[in-house]
C-alpha cells in the first residue's frame, strides 16, 4: 500500500486525508500543534450560516476512521527527495517516514496585531483581535477587561492586510465577512449596543455574504463607516478613542468605543518558508507557496510527488479549502496511479 504524508491536520489536511484513505492509501498526518482543526479549532461560529466550528471539524474528522495516523506535537526536521522518487519526511521523534506522495497543507497564521502599534493591541486594555472575540463568544462572556458589558464596539477591517507598511499588500479575503458576522453576533447578544465597522471597501464576494451585510445593516443596525482607522488611544476610563475619516462624508471623526476589535489578516504559517526551502518549492513575495499553474494545476508543485492544499497557497474560505483539499487528493491519486505503471 502506498504511503501519503500530509503536513498539517487542519481542515485541508483532514479533508484530503479522508479522501485519500477512501481511495485506499495509507495516510500519515504530521501536525505541529497538540490538536487538529488548525485555526478553525479556536473559532466559535462560522459564516455564512453560523454553524459551530467544532461541528465542522467533527464533520471533517469523522470519515477518517482507521487507516489515518495523526502524529501531534511534531516538528519537521528534514524533507528529502530520494532517488526512488519518494520523499523522506524527517521529524525528531518519528525518525524518517518514506512518502510516495507528500501533501503540504500547512495553512496560515493570523497577522500579529501587535505590529500595528498605533491600534494599541497588547498596550490598551480593550483592544482585541477577531480571534480573541471568538474565544469570548465560545466562553459565552463578551465583556470588557474590567468585566463590563460593552455599549460601543468598533471593528477595524484590513489589519495587516492591504497595508504596505507591514509588507502585506494583499487582501485576506475572509476578514470582511468575519467582521460582519461578529458585528451581527454582538448585536444579537447586546441589542442596545452601538456597533461600528471601519472598512476601506467591503468584499462580500460569495452569494450569501451580501445578505449578511444587508442584514447587519437592516436587522442589527450596524453602522458601516468607510475609512481606515488612523490611530487609537486609551482614555482614563479604559475606553478607546478612535480617529478616523468618514471618507464618504469627507468628515474626520473622533469617537470612543468600549471594545475595539482588529480583523487581523492571514499570513503564511510560520514553518512555510522552512518547508519551501527544504523541498525547493516556490513562494510568492507574500510568502505563500505557489502551485505550477493557478488555473489548471493549482495543487501541483515543480517537485515531483509534492502537492499543495488549503491556505498555504493563499487566503481561502473554509468551503474553498475543502474543495481545494479534495482536488489535491484526486491529483495525488492520479500521480500515484501513473507512477505504478
Amino acid at each position, binding site marked *: 500500500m502506498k504511503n501519503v504524508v500530509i503536513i498539517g491536520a487542519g481542515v485541508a489536511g483532514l479533508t484530503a486525508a479522508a479522501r485519500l484513505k477512501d481511495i485506499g492509501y495509507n495516510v500519515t498526518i504530521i501536525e505541529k500543534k497538540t490538536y487538529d482543526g488548525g485555526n478553525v479549532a479556536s473559532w466559535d461560529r462560522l459564516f455564512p450560516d453560523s454553524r459551530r466550528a467544532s461541528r465542522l471539524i467533527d464533520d471533517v474528522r469523522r470519515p477518517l476512521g482507521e487507516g489515518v495516523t495523526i502524529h501531534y506535537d511534531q516538528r519537521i526536521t528534514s524533507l528529502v527527495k530520494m532517488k526512488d522518487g519518494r520523499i523522506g519526511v524527517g521529524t525528531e521523534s518519528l525518525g524518517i517516514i518514506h512518502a510516495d506522495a507528500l501533501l503540504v497543507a500547512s495553512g496560515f497564521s493570523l497577522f500579529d496585531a501587535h505590529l500595528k502599534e498605533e491600534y494599541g493591541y497588547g498596550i490598551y486594555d480593550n483592544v482585541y483581535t477577531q480571534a480573541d472575540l471568538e474565544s469570548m463568544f465560545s466562553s459565552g462572556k463578551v465583556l470588557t477587561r474590567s468585566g463590563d458589558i460593552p455599549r460601543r464596539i468598533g471593528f477595524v477591517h484590513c489589519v495587516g492586510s492591504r497595508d504596505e507598511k507591514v509588507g502585506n499588500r494583499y487582501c485576506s479575503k475572509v476578514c470582511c465577512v468575519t467582521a460582519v458576522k461578529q458585528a451581527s453576533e454582538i448585536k444579537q447578544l447586546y441589542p442596545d449596543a452601538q456597533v461600528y465597522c471601519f472598512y476601506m471597501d467591503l468584499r462580500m464576494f460569495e452569494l450569501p455574504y451580501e445578505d449578511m451585510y444587508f442584514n447587519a445593516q*437592516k436587522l442589527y443596525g450596524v*453602522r458601516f463607516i468607510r475609512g481606515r482607522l488612523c490611530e487609537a488611544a486609551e482614555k482614563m476610563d479604559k475606553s478607546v478613542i478612535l480617529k478616523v475619516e468618514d471618507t464618504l462624508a469627507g*468628515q474626520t471623526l473622533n469617537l470612543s468605543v468600549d471594545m475595539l476589535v482588529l480583523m487581523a489578516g492571514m499570513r503564511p504559517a510560520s514553518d512555510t518558508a522552512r518547508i519551501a526551502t527544504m523541498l525547493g518549492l516556490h513562494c510568492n513575495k507574500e510568502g505563500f507557496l505557489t502551485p505550477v499553474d493557478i488555473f489548471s494545476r493549482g495543487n501541483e508543485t515543480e517537485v515531483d510527488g509534492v502537492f499543495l492544499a488549503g491556505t498555504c497557497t493563499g487566503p481561502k474560505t473554509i468551503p474553498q479549502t475543502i474543495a481545494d483539499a479534495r482536488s489535491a487528493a484526486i491529483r495525488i491519486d492520479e500521480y500515484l496511479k501513473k507512477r505504478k505503471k
Partner: protein
Amino acid sequence: MIDFGYGITRSNRLNLDEADLSLARKMARREKSFATCIGCGTCTAGCTAGHFTAYNPRKIQLMILNGQTENLKEDLKKCMLCGRCQMLCPRGISLRSLWSKLYRALDDGRKTPAVTRDIF
C-alpha cells in the same frame, strides 16, 4: 474682556460621542430601509434637484447618521420629490418616503405652513 488679538480655532473633527444622534435613531425607526445605504451615489448622480443645485441625497443620509442636522431642512427644500433616486437605488431604499418622513421629523414640535404639510 481684554482682546489679546488671538482666538481659539474650533476643531474640524466631529466628535461622534457628543453628537446628537436622536434624528438618526428616529429615522432608523421610521424608515427601516434607510439603514441599508451602501453609499454608491447613484441617487445623487441621478438627482433632478442635484442637476441644478448642490443637493446631494447620499450626503443627507450621512449628515443624519453623523448628527449634522443644522442645515438639513434648508437642504431638503431643494428636493422636488420626483422619486428618481428611489427608482435608481440598487438597495431598494424607499427614498421618497425617507425624504417626506425626514421633513416631518425635522418639523416635530414646530409649526409648519399648511401648504408644506400638504406636499410632504
